[in-house]
């Protein structure tokens, strides 16, 4: 089954991931790619505390994730790989060009970001970074939960995304 979803979500592990996606996918494992979390036992323990015992969670820096991606993709269980921001996912794709699709699951408001969808706010630099991923052949779509329609980068930048939310 391997990693079925490469998701950018600033909440990382949370309800939409574990339940919203996890239940319909029969999720077997999560890969959390974050250089800071990979260095912190405390952060890892925090994310493990509430996760159901049948769900494995692997923590990795970008460099480690690049090296282990093929191994995770040989796993017979379905998995989700998470990064908290676009830059981390881009660096992972730089290291491992086999990633062909990225899900924008949640990037929330902060100064300088413009609302594109109710769960997606982007700066001009972040838009440029996503366009660059598309030019490299990576399909970029926004979708917070499986019940909502995937919104293409073009649609969400043109403001055509919300009508598709289930």
């Amino acid at each position, binding site marked *: 089954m391997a990693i079925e979803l490469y998701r950018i979500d600033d909440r990382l592990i949370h309800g939409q991931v574990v*339940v919203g996606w996890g239940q319909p996918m029969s999720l077997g494992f999560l890969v959390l790619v974050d250089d800071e979390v990979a260095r912190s036992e405390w952060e890892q323990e925090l994310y493990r505390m509430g996760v159901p015992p049948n769900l494995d969670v692997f923590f990795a820096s970008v460099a480690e994730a690049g090296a282990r991606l093929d191994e995770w993709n040989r796993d017979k269980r379905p998995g989700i790989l998470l990064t908290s921001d676009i830059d981390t996912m881009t660096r992972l794709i730089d290291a491992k060009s086999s990633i062909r699709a990225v899900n924008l699951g949640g990037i*929330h408001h902060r100064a300088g970001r413009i609302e594109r969808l109710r769960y997606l706010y982007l700066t001009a630099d972040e838009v440029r970074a996503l366009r660059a991923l598309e030019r490299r052949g990576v399909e970029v779509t926004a979708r917070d939960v499986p019940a909502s329609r995937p919104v293409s980068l073009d649609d969400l930048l043109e403001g055509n995304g919300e009508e598709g939310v289930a």
Partner: protein
Amino acid sequence: MSEPVSIVLAHGELAAGLVSAVEQITGMGNCFVAMSNAGLSSAELEVRLRALVDETGARVVFTDLPAGSCNIAAFRLLRDRDVIVVSGVNLPTLLHFVTHPQLSPEEAAAEAVERGAPTLKVTLGTPRGH
């Protein structure tokens, strides 16, 4: 009231709904402050929860979904705040907690979970055709 309030932190409007139900049943809804994670990043959620704990002096934070962002935000406070986190909150748990003010927060939280958890059960009706 002189006692510090407790915080109910949950997805969507759940916390406000639970606190409203506590108020309807006991008139003690003001013992809780409701907070939602809606529209907040995990970083912003943590900042706002810390501010609310500091502002209210709350010792107990009730959260809804284990592994949810509310739960993880509350767990983050365990590192440097003297708080108690209760996960998987339901209405009976809050009702038991709020109606036992004579207990310490630790005792009240533990007892409320002990009483609240078993209230979740399945009751079957009459099968079709009978």
